[in-house]
């Protein structure tokens, strides 16, 4: 088991489809919202939020490591982009 206590930084990673990549799920959500009477809804795009706890105190190191995680696993950079948010 991965030790999950004793972490000193929290990160939130947003993974979303790149602009120009079709998002049929977002489209279906938009249609459903229109069906519910939310007529003012324009384009809808959906994505993922991944929360991570990190054993790291150095913000720059944490960012570099998160970027590496995104490139290697969390996002498929062929179709997705990512944003990293850090909370001490």
């Amino acid at each position: 088991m991965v030790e999950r206590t004793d972490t000193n930084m929290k990160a939130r990673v947003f993974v979303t489809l790149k602009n120009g990549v079709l998002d049929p799920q977002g489209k279906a959500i938009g249609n459903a919202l229109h069906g519910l009477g939310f007529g003012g809804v324009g384009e809808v795009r959906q994505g993922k939020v991944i929360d991570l706890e990190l054993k790291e105190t150095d913000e720059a190191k944490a960012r570099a490591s998160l970027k590496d995680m995104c490139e290697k696993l969390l996002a498929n950079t062929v179709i997705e982009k990512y944003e990293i948010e850090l909370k001490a």
Partner: protein
Amino acid sequence: MKSAVIVFPASNCDRDAQTALKQLTGKDPHMVWHQESALPDVDLVVLPGGFSYGDYLRCGAMASQSSVMKAVKAHAEKGGAVIGICNGFQVLTETHMLPGALMRNADLKFVCRPVKLTVEETQSAFTRKYAKGQQITVPVAHGEGNYFADDETLNRLEGENRVAFRYAEGDNPNGSARNIAGILNEKRNVLGLMPHPERVVDPLLGGEDGKALFQSLIETLA
């Protein structure tokens, strides 16, 4: 031809691939568990269909990080043949052994039916027993088979004759770019495709249009 079928947790077409290979090669393929770090001495590696690791994160994403995939990559780098069917195709794109990505079907529906394919390319170990332009019927069964790549990549695939199979005009089941159903890597020893040739190797199963793919491999690699 000696072959291996990789078994991930939640692979579910591994037995189909095993049965097809046994029937056509007369030899039992090795069934290789995802935690193995070495492959037996084989000519062909099959990445079967299924829902490896429950499709967690993205289809094929977790499988691409498994220890056996390092060995599969090394096998391909040495020129060994690899075929990824359905989820296996998704694993190949996630490991960057093939370009592009397989996205959610355009209509969001899981599609499970026979589709008409056109054989686009016969200059490969996988397709030499087909005729160029031949129309075959092979079943698909997937929710995420919508092939996507940027225009530059698509142009390159077409320019280098690396589109092996296309969905016949009017029979694209998932919204794939340029009706692409299966592609080859640059060295032409890795093929990924969404349709299931291993399910049509016996008339009892409703067709034999997948047989020529395995016979091509047997002829090339045996």
